């Protein structure tokens, strides 16, 4: 379709960037300890906040990775459609 144009090299490059972002996801990444700060309240509050934000950070990285995977699958499907069309009109 006319409104559909695609520079595959650029799009593949872009998806590579997003996929690398997705690889930053590491739910088990080490969180720095503050256990010796001298306050149980601070240690507990920090642990709760850090675990939650860590999960949110992982979810954010995962989002970029998922978008890259989903779009790569779409590109593959587009390529197959293009090949089918080419075969149909030859």
């Amino acid at each position, binding site marked *: 379709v006319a409104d559909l144009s695609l520079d595959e090299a650029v799009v593949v490059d872009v998806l590579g960037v*997003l996929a690398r972002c997705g690889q930053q996801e590491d739910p088990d990444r080490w969180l720095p300890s503050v256990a010796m700060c001298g306050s149980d309240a601070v240690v507990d509050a920090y642990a709760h906040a850090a675990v939650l934000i860590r999960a949110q950070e992982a979810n954010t990285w995962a989002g970029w990775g998922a978008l890259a995977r989903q779009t790569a699958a779409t590109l593959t499907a587009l390529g197959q459609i293009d090949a089918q069309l080419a075969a*149909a009109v030859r």
Partner: protein
Amino acid sequence: VSEARRPDHGVPSECTGAATVVEGYAQTLVEGRALAAGAVGRIGAGAWTGEAASAFCGTADALGAAAVPVVEAWDRVAAALREYGSELTNLQEEADGVRRRLTSEEEQLESLLIVLRDAQESSGAALRVATLTAQVAMVRAEVAACWTRLEDIASRRGDLDQRTAGALMAAPGPGGAAWVGIAYTPDGRRLPDAVVLDELLDRLTDGEVTDEDLDLLRQVLLSCSNDPAWCATMLFALEASGLVEVLDAAAVRLDDPDGAAAAVLLGLLTGALASASARWDAQRNQELGAALLDAIDSDTSHVLVPSLFTGAGLDPQVAVGALDHLEQMRVDDPDRFRSLADAQYPGVGAVGGYGVDLSAALFGAVSGSPSDALAFLCEGDMAATDRIRYWFGERDWTFDGFEGPATMLDAIVNATAAQQAREGDPFDPLWVLTTVVASEAFQQLGGNLHYTLDHVTPQASLDIAEALAPYAPEIAAGLEQGTEGTDDQSGTKAVVLFGQTVPALGVTPGNLSRLLGIATVEPRALAVFTGAVSDYAGRVVDWATADGHPPAEQVQDALKGVGALYGLTYASYGLESELHAELVSDAHRAGQDLAFMLLGAVPGVKTGNLILDTAIKRGALTSLEELDSLVADGTLTPAQLDAITLAARGAGTEALARAVTDQIADRWDGISPSYADPPGGLDAAASARIAYQDAEALTAAMSLTCDTYANAFSNKTSSGAYDVTLADGTTRARQEMG
């Protein structure tokens, strides 16, 4: 006592060290976000266009927006830890001083007490005892003062601890503490999903959706929106009604000073629904789509519900269910239908608006599945005429710039399955049905009173041209042969193309001209359609000049069809530009004509489009002189430029006819059998009648037909065959169509 002496205990450097590490996390996320935004920006700049590209960019933007609160949360943690470490260091310095003083005073007191005891045991030392007693009292007062200062430090340490703990608890932002309370044990372990979900749904569905509920949900989705299983479970349990309530509440907050939080929530919800839909089967997705419409309360804001259907990756079946339900409402419950489909929301469709029109969103989403789009416009193996009449012929799509119906037409006609079916057998049931439905939809859209030049977006124009382009040959044949003929076997309206019977495009000339004319005022749409016209002309030339070509009469008919198609195309946009002169500048019109001639001079869709694309990008479509640059770099040959320049002095259609004639003339001497030698056995008069001495003679009728149709379709006051037929069956001349 030992603890009391050390109210400042702790290792501040551990906190500042942790702050530095956490700042690194935030910085990495900032850099990742910038990297992603930069990459996605290359898509937005044109490396990939189309609906999928738009959805991709929309989702990427939402992901970038969702990263912001996470970065801010890490920053708040880092700031709290750094401040804590710094203040604890200060307290420790202060406490060290007090302790040194305390130790000194205590040592002095111990010594004084020994001396005092000795003095008390001695005789005649009353004065000394009194003096020493006074000194002991003074030192004791100093010791007490030190303890008081240590207690003060302990108190301030307590305050610092509480303040820091509070800051850390609040670091994830509003709703964070509530989410931690639901999802984690006191020692930071994640509770089982089922337990978490129960508690979460209790909170979200215990009455009106509050700001606290929205904050909580945002925190939940920031943590889990890319976990399809979790999203599917949560959204299924929340049900459509709960989802719409949340969206309504979020819509109210969009205009608040903290509207960004609501926007983030909307992006997260749209993404979560898309990932959840991938885990559900078609039936569940369709039921959800219908239930979403049922859950809309017409009296309250539901501006955000349509946006749900536009998310990248959303299973089209959700929109299929919703659109089928909307259509059912149109028939069974018109009041309810109008309250949903005709609602106009502030901000929707406007530049920077945050909402989309419900019908437009559904048409766009359903078009992602062409077979479902076709099914929507069918009743069995027939076109659903009443449905098509409303959606294409009557509905005011001004709000959407007609992108909804245009997208759907493009999707149906250019579906891979449909085009493959056509290639295999022109009377394949799928292609016949596609053509019947497309014919009805083109007919209705061409007669839609709201479909006017100022109400159609460039995108919609492109889609319409794309949908019409594959039918250029059928249009040419229909103009010359009429569309009332039928295929003997199928009973379908049919025309003859290259000696083969194919389904006809059943659109009346007036409606076809108006549909095409409005769309092709947009340069790229003109390029698309004219490219198809040129391609067809090239095929006719090849067919007419091939060895053992068909009889001259058949060739004549095909050439006249080409002429008629050129005439129709030229006159259609020309008349529309004339009728709306206030919207179309002279320069634009000149560019249109130049584009038209450019394509006509170079038959063959790929070559012509390449040249036109180059010309449009360089802005070289406003004068002939600027075309020199296309010759300079070899895009256009000098001969082609000459042809265009010469033709520009005459009518546009003349150039096109000339192009076909020249192509045939170039091959004239090699054509076998020669058109100059009629079959034997004819008398002299008959031989002379069907003998063509040169290409000019062979194509004379084509040129005449071209001019005839150009004139006929240019007549804005014409009546009869060139009138436009409206949805109610009445007819109007083009100039009465607004």
